[in-house]
């Protein structure tokens, strides 16, 4: 019984981390119709920034805030310097692929750069709250105060961002710019600035994912650690399962992925991690090619 509860808790808490990454990916997709593979690199960079800030201010929460702000800045800069040019050039056969490829290149540049400047250094971020599970009647559960923080961060982010998207003028401008940039411009929306804003929000979300997951894992941060690119793969799978369009979908996708992975690892075969993720994705897409929360016959990218 305890084992089953723990399995569910492991699934939910690890799924929350995938959701964080998925939220960042969905934000970029919703505001610019780009799958941003550089997100993993940006999260890595932001987390390094957060680590430096921790050294200076000795507070995880200040570091988290600064990492999110600077992460947003980096993301905005990437949009302005690279993506803007690519969006403008929407002709030619490569137009649909170019942004994806550019983000892959950016991922390589960020990782290489961090490798050169930060490689080999000992960089560890300790959680600000205990990561030791709650103990009830002698059993310690796979849920700790810090994991609760992550779970609630995911929910708060999802609700807050969903509200921004659906209830505010900025959200309306973000959606309009993504769906129909030309119409949005004709309606007076400063599409370029709005897109930069979309990337900035995503950059902040990605920074939060990095800053929360690092101490949740072993705490070690290294340019070589596959953590972030694995996170990207799983975050991306979560986002695709959820339907790419919807923040709620991203969270559902992440939690579902986490739960299924935990159950399979625990009860079926402990080595099937990557295959399970793949099979889950295929099954979801075969039933609903547009993802769980995706709208049917969505616009082409």
């Amino acid at each position, binding site marked *: 019984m305890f084992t089953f509860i723990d399995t569910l808790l492991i699934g939910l808490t690890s799924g929350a981390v995938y959701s964080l990454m998925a939220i960042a990916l969905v934000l970029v997709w919703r505001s610019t119709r780009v799958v941003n593979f550089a997100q993993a690199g940006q999260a890595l960079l932001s987390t390094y920034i957060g680590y430096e800030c921790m050294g200076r201010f000795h507070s995880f929460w200040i570091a988290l805030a600064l990492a999110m702000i600077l992460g947003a800045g980096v993301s905005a800069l990437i949009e302005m310097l690279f993506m803007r040019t690519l969006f403008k050039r929407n002709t030619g056969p490569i137009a649909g692929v170019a942004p994806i490829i550019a983000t892959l290149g950016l991922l390589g540049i960020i990782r290489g750069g961090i490798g050169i400047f930060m490689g080999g250094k000992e960089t560890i971020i300790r959680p600000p709250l205990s990561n030791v599970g709650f103990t009830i009647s002698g059993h310690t559960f796979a849920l700790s105060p810090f994991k609760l923080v992550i779970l609630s961060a995911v929910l708060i982010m999802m609700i807050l961002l969903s509200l921004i998207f659906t209830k505010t003028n900025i959200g309306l401008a973000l*959606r309009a710019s993504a769906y129909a940039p030309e119409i949005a411009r004709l*309606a007076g929306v400063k599409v370029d600035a709005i897109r930069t804003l979309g990337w900035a929000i995503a950059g902040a979300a990605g920074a939060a994912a990095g800053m929360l997951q690092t101490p949740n894992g072993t705490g070690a941060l290294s340019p070589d650690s596959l953590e972030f690119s694995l996170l990207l793969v799983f975050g991306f799978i979560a986002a695709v399962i959820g339907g790419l369009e919807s923040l709620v979908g991203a969270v559902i996708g992440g939690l579902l992925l986490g739960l299924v992975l935990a159950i399979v690892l625990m009860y079926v075969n402990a080595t099937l991690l990557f295959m399970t993720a793949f099979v889950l994705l295929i099954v979801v897409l075969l039933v609903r090619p547009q993802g769980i929360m995706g709208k049917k016959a969505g616009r082409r990218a």
Partner: protein
Amino acid sequence: MTLIVSELCVDHGAIRAVDHVSLRIEQGQLAAVIGANGAGKTTLLRALSGLTPARSGSATWKGHDLLHSKPEKLVRFGVSHVSEGKSVIPELSVEENLNLGALWRRNAKESEQTRNKIFETFPRLEERAGQLADTLSGGERQMLAIGRALMAKPELLLLDEPSLGLAPLVIAQIFQSIRDLTTQMGLTVVLVEQNALGALEIADVGIVLNLGRIAATDRAQSLIENPQVRAAYLGY
């Protein structure tokens, strides 16, 4: 408050789509631009709203240079463009589509007044305010597109083929609303139309484009009566 275009040239790749066009549209006038497919009507309109860069020439409105401004900026000077086809965003609700037009105005109260006025003109939109624009009929979409443009409180309205793909009855209704709006709100309207007769019937002046050049300009009524224009564009 006059729209003055002089010697405007616009290229589409290697092709010159608009060739030394000069025209002058007075305030409060409804000008119909007619011509065959590929005559450069849409390109002319897109150049005026900053969507397509011009090659040479000039266009001014209220002293603003239209050719070298971004469309989002021109909206703030009172220039609204309803582009060809369904100029609505199907993924947004009717109300959101309307609100989009007034986002930059940042005055909620004023926007609401404008919206109510638009609902008076197009009651169908009010009935469907909460629905996705995707669910609207062609005519309703056109109303929504025009409504969205009006939300910006424009003084110069550029309309591209509002009759495209609509049934004759609906076209008549749309044209009538365009005429009414022009008169009531004192708008200056440039209406690009394939449906030449319908457009000329509500217009004050008419401009005939042929292969990017102006073939004729005159009062709309005179153009309707002009036998050559009738033969070439009105089909009788």
